């Protein structure tokens, strides 16, 4: 009941609506293009460009049928994307999990320099590397091959995933492994039976990051793939030609690309935020 208390109450009372208005504005700014794409993908051809845009309309799935049934490109691209992203994720984990463990637990010469080098490779702009990558793949006959694209995607995912795994392993007390060693476990048994099960959450988040990175990747895919292996972000451009822009099927495909990312982000929100702060907060 002090004057100070009254004042702060008043500030809170005014503050709350202001806060929510700001939140709403921010949310809409981010969500508007997403909402537009989703709505458009269900609109009939004739509804797409009516002005003012119609919010209530008769939804239709014709664009989805058009994209996935009538054009073979998108279905194939989606399968390619699933294949490439899955393979990239699995192979990335096979490299990043043991590497992250080694960087966080084993002391060896140039450890810090090496782990920093892994991070530094992330700072190079991909566009600068595209020509050498193109030459490497063309000389090794791996242009328009799954192997080639997966290898290149791994150059994007592995360094970041190593760093993610380093932070997860660092959060784990060393005494767990020491205890396992005293209990009779070999280093491998300690890793597989104690360490790895204790970091499943971290491995899961790392897998999600790797999958999304590969799934969303466009620049390398557009240059390094051809008709056989092109991924869905590349294939989607078949709807935009110099003659016509097929907005309906384009947005339908766009929704398909975004859907898994949004679903995963919603479900794994908390764990992923922890991953993105790179161990700045404990648990």
């Amino acid at each position, binding site marked *: 009941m002090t004057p100070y208390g009254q004042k702060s109450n008043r500030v809170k009372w005014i503050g709350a609506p202001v806060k929510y208005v700001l939140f709403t504005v921010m949310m809409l700014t981010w969500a508007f293009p997403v909402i537009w794409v989703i709505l458009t993908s269900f609109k009939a051809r004739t509804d797409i460009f009516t002005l003012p845009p119609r919010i209530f309309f008769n939804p239709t799935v014709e664009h989805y049928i058009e994209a996935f049934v009538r054009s073979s490109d998108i279905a194939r691209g989606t399968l390619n994307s699933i294949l490439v992203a899955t393979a990239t994720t699995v192979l990335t984990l096979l490299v990043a999990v043991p590497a992250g463990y080694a960087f966080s637990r084993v002391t060896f010469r140039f450890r810090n320099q090496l782990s920093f080098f892994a991070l530094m490779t992330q700072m190079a702009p991909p566009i600068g590397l595209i020509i050498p990558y193109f030459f490497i793949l063309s000389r090794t006959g791996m242009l328009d091959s799954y192997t080639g694209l997966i290898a290149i995607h791994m150059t994007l995912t592995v360094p970041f995933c190593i760093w993610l795994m380093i932070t997860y392993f660092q959060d784990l*007390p060393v*005494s*767990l492994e*020491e*205890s*396992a*060693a*005293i*209990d*009779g*476990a*070999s280093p491998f*048994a300690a890793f597989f*039976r*104690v360490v790895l*099960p*204790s970091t*499943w959450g971290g491995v899961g988040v790392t897998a999600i990051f790797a999958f999304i990175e590969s799934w969303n990747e466009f620049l390398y895919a557009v240059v390094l793939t051809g008709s056989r292996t092109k991924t869905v972000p590349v294939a989607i451009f078949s709807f935009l030609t110099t003659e016509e822009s097929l907005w309906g099927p384009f947005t339908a495909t766009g929704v398909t690309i975004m859907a898994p990312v949004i679903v995963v982000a919603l479900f794994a929100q908390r764990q992923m935020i922890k991953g993105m702060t790179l161990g700045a907060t404990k648990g």
Partner: protein
Amino acid sequence: MAGVILKAVFKTFGKTTAIKNFSLEIDDGEFVVLVGPSGCGKSTMLRLIAGLETASSGEIYIGDQLVNEVHPRDRDISMVFQNYALYPRMTVYENMSFSLRMRKIPKAEIERIVRQTADLLRIGQLLDRKPGQLSGGQRQRVALGRSIVRNPQVFLFDEPLSNLDAKLRIAMRAELLLLHQRLKTTIIYVTHDQLEAMTMGNRIVVMKDGLIQQVDAPDAVYDQPLNRFVAGFIGSPTMNFIDCRVVSEKGDLYATTPGIRLKIPESHARHAEKYIDQEAILGIRPEHLTVSTNNRHLDAADRFKAVVRVIENAGSEKLVHIRNENDTLVARLERHIRLKTEETVDFTARMDSAHLFDKQTEHTIF
């Protein structure tokens, strides 16, 4: 079961030496406590015995076997860590049986041992839970259980009680002692808590800066500290230290400050003789200071006046901070003694229990 022998063990990390010339023989079935302030090397010594670190030089024997190059799993020891190090994704049963499974013991046998140990520790009803669902005290028991199931030669405890609240810690202290009486396995126990060391060990090893300061039974460490560090580290509240001067008058020796003049008992006097007219440090434990009651007592050679500054009432006793000239002392008095702050009071020091330390070397003179 087995004893542990440490011979001239050194451990260096880069340029710092964590353990300096550590030699100790621990008997089979003994409960030895390594105690010292943080950074004194006590945990490092325990890790050397466990095999989690390798000694830079020296020899470590468990039983008759030289174990310097032996992997932790082959040393037949078990260890309880400060953070318990329970495997988070395993149930209590899986945690406790892990070492037995690693050693390929038959399933039925494992089941029998784990159940028996769980009953001993009264955690039988928790076997299906995960560590995250347990309270601190329960985790502590599981960690103990995990180390007991294998019936090792030696138990190593690294500050196992320091994550528990005060009440639970006292309860677990007694329980560990009971457990030791029952299992009779050698225990090497590390703590920074001198009270824990005093109450639990058959012998206490006081360490500082990687060096053993004193090894002895708790009472001996308390009553006959070898140097000023041990005297100050063991005992709470800590011993009072007063810079004084040794003076000889009419054949008697006195420890004097500008405001205090205390007679050194004859039994101790011969040790102090070579310090006549030199500086020294007088050490008196708080419980050896009392309020003088007999005013007619003529021999005032064990008395001094002091002003009461602060009175801490601990219920069962009073800790009274007093001041004489520039010296501040703490006296532990019985609860019924009534004093007022700023009051000048006559105190008696039990000089036959007091100590004198060399000012340079800080070694005990008596």
